[in-house]
């Protein structure tokens, strides 16, 4: 059972699985979006008359036609189509619906827009300068969001310090690069409202936002999800403009409308992880004790906010709970710029800060002549601890993870010149009370079909990370039936409970527990029903009934197949099958207070990654030799799935560290495509060894914890730390490309010169 995969995998290997782009409906029109060529400008005039006359063009809309109010995830700073201004190159200005792609493209070319270009701000620094042009009326200084996070007395910490270490780090904007570009079909009808066929990680949350924009009650917007070709956070909210515009076009034309993003649009108008700059300063004792850390963080919001204030919150606080750091002073600022609006990517900002903090710790270790492993072991958070922000470590195997990673990579081994090892560790939540205002748990229904099979109904999403399989395993374990008897029904907001979906690494712990409870409640119901309905069981004590291998078994050995119970129960209920609901609220969690203090997740996952590299000093090229990824994700329910998460997450972390990153020139994305934005290929990856410390968690279903997001994080700092160990070259600006390593080696910062 530990390697169980449900039969959906067969749909994928045969090419039968239907993704958004594969959908076709009778009378379907093709929708296309016209985007701004300017990073900042006033819209003076839009003339769509020529476009409307093109044969095959059914509808053309602009912001003025829509009279839509502003919306947003955190801040209502967006409109479906720009009305007064455009704020980045790619900003949506008009949309068309036509018969066929050629007509749609022609229509776009025929729309005449007159712009008055405005001065653009290209970086947060520029945007914050006095007198800089402002993007949004409500934010005259372009400062979208700001936070001061203080604990203890940082000033005193600096006074008490034996050693102070400081450095500046930067990390570029990074694209989720899922292989399936966003594709949606919107179908409006007067009875149902609007149905949008598109794959989303959080269909319900997204539904409510989009329904608000469309002026529909949420129950009149239905989201039906085909298979998803990767999401990694980028499809939690996805491309809301696409869904909104397709819906509006369908509502206006009365026909289904499909909008499919090109890969280039995914780069210029998707929501990548933000570019960020971190100025850090740490105070320590000469025995390695961390006294305090001061951080000044600048985050590029891009032109619109979306979920960035939430991401910025995680970015600015998460890593403080990885170690005991009693004194903190963090200033984090999120700033509007005339660039691609930013969003979320696996780990939600955790990785951005982790790269910088874990690099700085190595620099600190170097400064006091301490082993980077030992300095971490000395200060790291442990089982039972409460972190400086109030996170309670119900289960924590972080020290063991660090030691295991170090041991497996051969930490103490003598190595030839130019070879080295690096290490980094990480903490992540399993759900987050900040995720949604109404509740932070999950619910599910378990339904016994008349043939004894079981359907689990939940809104939690599987897009290849194995949610459906693990849920089936959980329910199968409770009910003692084969997992293949279970189907997960999740892809339709009209028939599933409101679920928060796949983000904050919550689905296994929280969603999985809801499934477990629903299955347990179903088990109770099955026993009760059997006791009431079945002649031969009427006098049996239902307490002594057991579910064994798909049968109901009495203490005396009488066995009744589930099928029989199901059918009798259904008939007794006039046709209603046996259904049981399960609700799960993560225990003891609290919302964070104004100062950011609170046990925001029921439990936390940990990881330590170590990598061995060889540096070619002549060119700065780095050969990754092997990587060890040690994870504390509690008991592992599914080995194959968990390993897959590690291999995949590490490849993303490696890409982040080595080759990825948006290149901008005055607001223009210079690398909006896979030929110029490089992600790792099969030839780039080193051998990866995943190790799971199966340290049973008291909260998670069967002792399991989430693993899906944390996998990307520690590889990034481990890589730059390894380069420093191998060659002395310290790269503080990602990506650590060969050129950067070369110059760090030959000109710039060498280890031992840390200030």
């Amino acid at each position: 059972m530990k390697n169980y995969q449900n039969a959906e995998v067969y749909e994928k290997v045969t090419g039968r699985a239907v993704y958004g782009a594969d959908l076709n409906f009778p009378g379907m029109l093709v929708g296309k979006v016209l985007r701004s060529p300017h990073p900042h400008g006033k819209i003076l005039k839009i003339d769509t008359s020529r476009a409307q006359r093109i044969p095959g063009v059914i509808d053309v809309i602009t912001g003025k036609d829509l009279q839509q109010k502003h919306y947003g995830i955190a801040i209502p700073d967006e409109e479906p189509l720009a009305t007064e201004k455009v704020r980045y190159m790619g900003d949506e200005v008009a949309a068309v619906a036509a018969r066929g792609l050629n007509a749609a493209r022609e229509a776009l070319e025929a729309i005449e827009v007159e712009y008055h270009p405005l001065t653009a701000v290209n970086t947060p620094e520029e945007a914050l300068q006095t007198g800089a042009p402002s993007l949004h009326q409500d934010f005259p200084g372009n400062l979208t969001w700001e936070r001061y996070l203080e604990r203890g007395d940082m000033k005193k910490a600096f006074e008490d310090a034996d050693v102070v270490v400081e450095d500046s780090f930067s990390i570029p904007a990074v694209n989720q690069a899922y292989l399936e570009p966003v594709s949606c079909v919107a179908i409006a009808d007067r009875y149902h409202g609007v149905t949008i066929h598109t794959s989303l990680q959080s269909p319900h949350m997204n539904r409510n936002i989009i329904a608000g924009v469309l002026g529909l009650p949420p129950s009149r917007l239905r989201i039906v999800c085909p298979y998803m070709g990767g999401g990694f956070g980028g499809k939690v909210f996805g491309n809301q403009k696409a869904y909104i515009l397709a819906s509006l076009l369908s509502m206006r034309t009365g026909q289904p409308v499909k909008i499919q993003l090109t890969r280039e649009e995914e780069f210029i108008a998707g929501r990548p992880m933000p570019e960020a700059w971190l100025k850090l300063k740490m105070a320590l004792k000469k025995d390695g004790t961390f006294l305090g850390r001061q951080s000044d963080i600048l985050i590029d919001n891009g032109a619109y906010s979306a979920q960035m204030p939430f991401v910025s919150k995680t970015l600015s606080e998460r890593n403080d709970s990885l170690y005991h750091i009693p004194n903190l002073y963090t200033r984090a600022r999120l700033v509007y710029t005339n660039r691609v609006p930013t969003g979320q990517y696996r780990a939600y900002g955790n990785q951005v800060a982790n790269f910088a903090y874990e690099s700085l710790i190595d620099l600190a270790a170097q400064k006091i002549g301490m082993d980077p492993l030992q300095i971490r072991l000395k200060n790291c958070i442990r089982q039972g601890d409460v972190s400086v922000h109030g996170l309670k470590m119900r289960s924590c195997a972080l020290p063991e993870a660090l030691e295991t990673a170090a041991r497996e990579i051969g930490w103490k081994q003598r190595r030839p010149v130019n070879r080295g090892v690096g290490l980094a560790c990480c903490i992540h939540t399993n759900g987050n009370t900040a995720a949604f205002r109404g509740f932070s748990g999950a619910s599910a229904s378990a339904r016994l079909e008349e043939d004894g099979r079981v359907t689990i109904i939940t809104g939690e999403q599987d897009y290849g990370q194995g949610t459906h399989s693990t849920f089936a395993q959980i329910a199968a374990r409770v009910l003692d039936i084969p997992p293949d008897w279970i189907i997960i029904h999740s892809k339709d907001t009209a028939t599933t409970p409101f679920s928060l979906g796949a983000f904050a690494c919550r689905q296994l712990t929280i969603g999985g527990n809801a499934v477990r409870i629903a299955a347990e409640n179903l088990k109770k119901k099955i026993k009760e029903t059997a006791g009431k309905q079945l002649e031969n069981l009427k006098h049996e004590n239902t307490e002594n009934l057991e579910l064994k291998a798909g049968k109901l078994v009495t203490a005396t050995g009488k066995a009744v197949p589930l099928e029989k119970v199901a059918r009798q129960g259904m008939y007794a209920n006039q046709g209603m099958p046996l259904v049981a609901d399960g609700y799960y609220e993560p225990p003891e969690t609290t919302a964070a207070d104004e100062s950011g203090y609170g046990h925001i997740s029921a439990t936390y996952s940990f990881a330590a990654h170590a990598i061995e590299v060889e540096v070619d000093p002549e060119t700065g090229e780095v050969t990754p030799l092997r990587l060890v990824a040690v994870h504390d994700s509690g008991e592992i329910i599914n080995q194959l799935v968990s390993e897959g998460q590690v291999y995949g997450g590490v490849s993303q972390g490696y890409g982040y560290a080595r080759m990825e990153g948006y290149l901008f020139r005055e607001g223009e994305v210079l690398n909006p495509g896979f030929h110029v934005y490089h992600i790792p290929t099969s030839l780039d990856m080193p051998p990866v060894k995943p190790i799971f410390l199966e340290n049973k968690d008291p909260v998670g279903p069967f002792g399991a914890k989430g693993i899906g997001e944390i996998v990307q994080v520690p590889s990034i700092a481990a890589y730059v730390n390894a380069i420093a160990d191998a060659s002395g070259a310290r790269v503080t600006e990602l990506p650590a490309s060969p050129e950067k390593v070369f110059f760090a080696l030959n000109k710039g910062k060498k280890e031992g010169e840390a200030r």
Partner: protein
Amino acid sequence: MTYINATTIAQALGALREQKGKARVIAGGTDLYLQQLPEILVDISGIDKMRQIQITGEILELGSGITHAQTFASSLLQERATCLSEACSYVGSPQIRNLGTLGGNVVNAAPAADAAVGLVTMDARAILVDCEGGNKEAPLEELYQGYNRTTLDNSREILMALKFTVHHPGEGSSYQRFSSRKSLSLPIVSVGAWAKVKDKQISGVRLVAAPLNPSPTRLRRVEKELEGAFASPETYRKAGELAREEAVTRDSPLRGSGEYRRHLVGVGVERALREAVYRAMGIPSEEKAGDYYQ
């Protein structure tokens, strides 16, 4: 018919002549297809004669319709035109290598084109025919005319074959490439080297680097300095230094700073020259373009 799959050279030329300048030649299409496709296309990838490797004595004629994959797979070319074989092994991806032809690589004239560097290192000559019955042969370098342009008129002329002398005993070549990742990338810098060694002295050498200019660049000054030099680490290092002086590189936001790329030219020349000399002398090399699978 606006897409003509020619099976013979005569048919292809005839089609071009008939269309009076409105048709264009397409080979693999992997470059052309990313640009605006012309209305009328004459596909020459099905002409068997243009995919042949013909060797007469020491002169090899490579049909320009040969794909990168076929070039890479030929054991004759691996042994006796090594830098070309290696260059082709890096182009794009297996899928691109199965479609893209050497002729297309030359005619598309991308400054970073791999096969072109391999060909210039082999001192290849281009054989062209036109639809009026004319034909000409010229050094490959003379074909280039600015960024992504050659003198070839795609509506009238076909690049038929590339012609070069294969390695004699005492000759060897190598291709060195630096790129941002190990597949699906253009090179940041690539270098081809061919060397002739007699009595441990370099009696002939060709060094080519890209992308420095619109076309592969012969480092002629370095070549001159190397004549008669002893095959030694000092020589390879010196070659690298001289190359750095001769190469002119610009900053490129996508590829890297001019300074770094100039440095890489030096490293590439040093390594390619050393490898070429080793091969010329029959010294077993540690380097391999990789498991030949196709």
